[in-house]
């Protein structure tokens, strides 16, 4: 072989080797991708059934793999990445549950079961050994210990079941209506405005505003009650308070009396409507005689609340004494 041919061969072989090395470098797996995949195989896809995020084609798994890759690129350690995901999803994100906390039983139970199994096998194989070694007093003691084992098992059961139990909405304590905020009632009413059953809640909220003197918020709710096919009692309550608001807020005496008359048509002799009508007539028309008559009707009625009775009696005395409202 000539020197020229040898040189040509040498260049050809060197070139081929260089190309081979280049291809090998290009197609070689990226070490960081290896690390990401290895980590991904240890992490459970939160929306799948027992699949790792490295295996799952779900969007959530892909997002998590992307996060793992970006954390690796940022220089995070494997443990830091795992800690970050455990902080968000809990230990359930680990395909191998940790040997601690609520998952400790998953590790201990198979060991305990195996130990009992071995014990049972040994008893079957060498029953005489047990008979010989377990004396009567000792047998009692062992039975006691055994009973404690059963009790302990039952206790563990309660703990384990408690840990796995999910709180559901039916488990919630019934909500005390008095503790529900006005905003919550507003939200419930707005979300269910087409439901006729909501009128009672709307009236209750309007009454809260009325008692707080917040006529601006009470007014639209009373209007909605009247327009919403109310029961006579609901209509009476709304009309009475609307009447008082138009008098107290705007000084509209005639309209107030008209609304209260409508309330009394809905609920004849309603004490609250009679009382407020009496006050409108006394304060708005300076008509003490009619007011005294209405206050008298209120006091003659049954089941009057003590506080209302007190107020009516005070107004009645003042009206009789010729005082102004």
């Amino acid at each position: 072989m000539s020197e020229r041919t040898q040189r040509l061969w040498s260049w050809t072989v060197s070139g081929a080797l260089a190309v081979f090395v280049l291809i090998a470098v290009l197609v070689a797996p990226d070490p960081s991708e290896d690390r990401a995949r290895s980590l991904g195989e240890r992490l459970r896809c939160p929306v799948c059934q027992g699949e790792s995020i490295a295996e799952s084609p779900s969007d959530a798994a892909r997002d998590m793999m992307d996060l793992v890759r970006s954390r690796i690129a940022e220089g995070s350690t494997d443990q830091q990445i795992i800690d970050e995901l455990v902080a968000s999803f809990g230990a359930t994100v680990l395909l191998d549950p940790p040997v601690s906390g609520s998952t400790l039983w998953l590790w201990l139970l198979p060991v305990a079961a195996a130990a009992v199994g071995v014990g049972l096998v040994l008893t079957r194989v060498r029953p005489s050994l047990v008979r010989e070694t377990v004396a009567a007093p000792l047998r009692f003691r062992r039975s006691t210990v055994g009973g404690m084992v059963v009790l302990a098992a039952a206790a563990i059961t309660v703990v384990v079941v408690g840990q796995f139990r999910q709180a559901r909405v039916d488990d919630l304590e019934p909500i005390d209506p008095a503790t529900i905020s006005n905003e919550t009632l507003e939200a419930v009413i707005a979300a269910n405005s087409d439901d006729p059953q909501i009128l009672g809640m709307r009236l209750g909220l309007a009454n809260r505003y009325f008692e707080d003197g917040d006529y601006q918020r009470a007014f639209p709710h009373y209007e909605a009650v009247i327009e919403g096919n109310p029961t006579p009692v609901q209509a009476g309550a709304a009309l009475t308070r609307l009447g008082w608001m138009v008098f107290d807020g705007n000084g509209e005496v005639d309209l107030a009396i008209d609304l209260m008359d409508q309330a009394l048509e809905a609920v004849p002799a309603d004490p609250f409507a009679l009382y407020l009508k009496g006050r409108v007539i006394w304060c708005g028309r300076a008509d003490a005689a009619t007011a005294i008559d209405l206050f008298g009707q209120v006091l003659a009625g049954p089941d009057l609340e003590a506080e209302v009775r007190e107020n009516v009696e005070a107004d009645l005395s003042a009206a009789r004494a010729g005082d102004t409202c």
Partner: protein
Amino acid sequence: MTFIKWLAGGMVVLSVALAIVFITRFGSDPAIVDSPLLGKPAPTITLPRLDGQGEVDLTAIEADVVVVNFFASWCLPCREEQPQLVAAANAFAGRGVRFVSIAYRNDPAEIAAFLEEYGNSPSTLYLTDPGGRAAIAYGVFGIPETFFIGTDGAVVRKIVGAADALILGSTIDAVLAGEEPGQVVVGETFTGPGG
């Protein structure tokens, strides 16, 4: 009875108990676990607004309570929940409560159509979640899920499933009253456009 028999009895009791646990778990969603975020500081994350007008740092929102809801147009329970969220957001607007709705795995045009159809609140911040980073940070297993962040910046409540206005409002009331952190399941969740 021998010790071994008692021990075996104990194991039987445990096995039956575990069977009960697994059977009851089969009846519920195995993905639902108590959020490890409860009682811990809310994740620090900044997300783009749905309308493209800048970004919002969730931990920088000034409010007594921040309600963070994860939703999507392909999530059926979200359709039921959306009007309830809107009603609650409107009712609590200006009362120190801020609602934040984060669209998960959703095209902005589809979200806009969803909000048009099922309602939206002017006081709510509507955000997108590129790469699902917020969903990962909050440990979202399925949607809808709603998290409540208290005044101290800690996650104090979580609702799994479509919440109604009463649950949303009473949860806010509880957070404002400083009640203990907790989680409740009110319905099913969806994990992707396929259900």
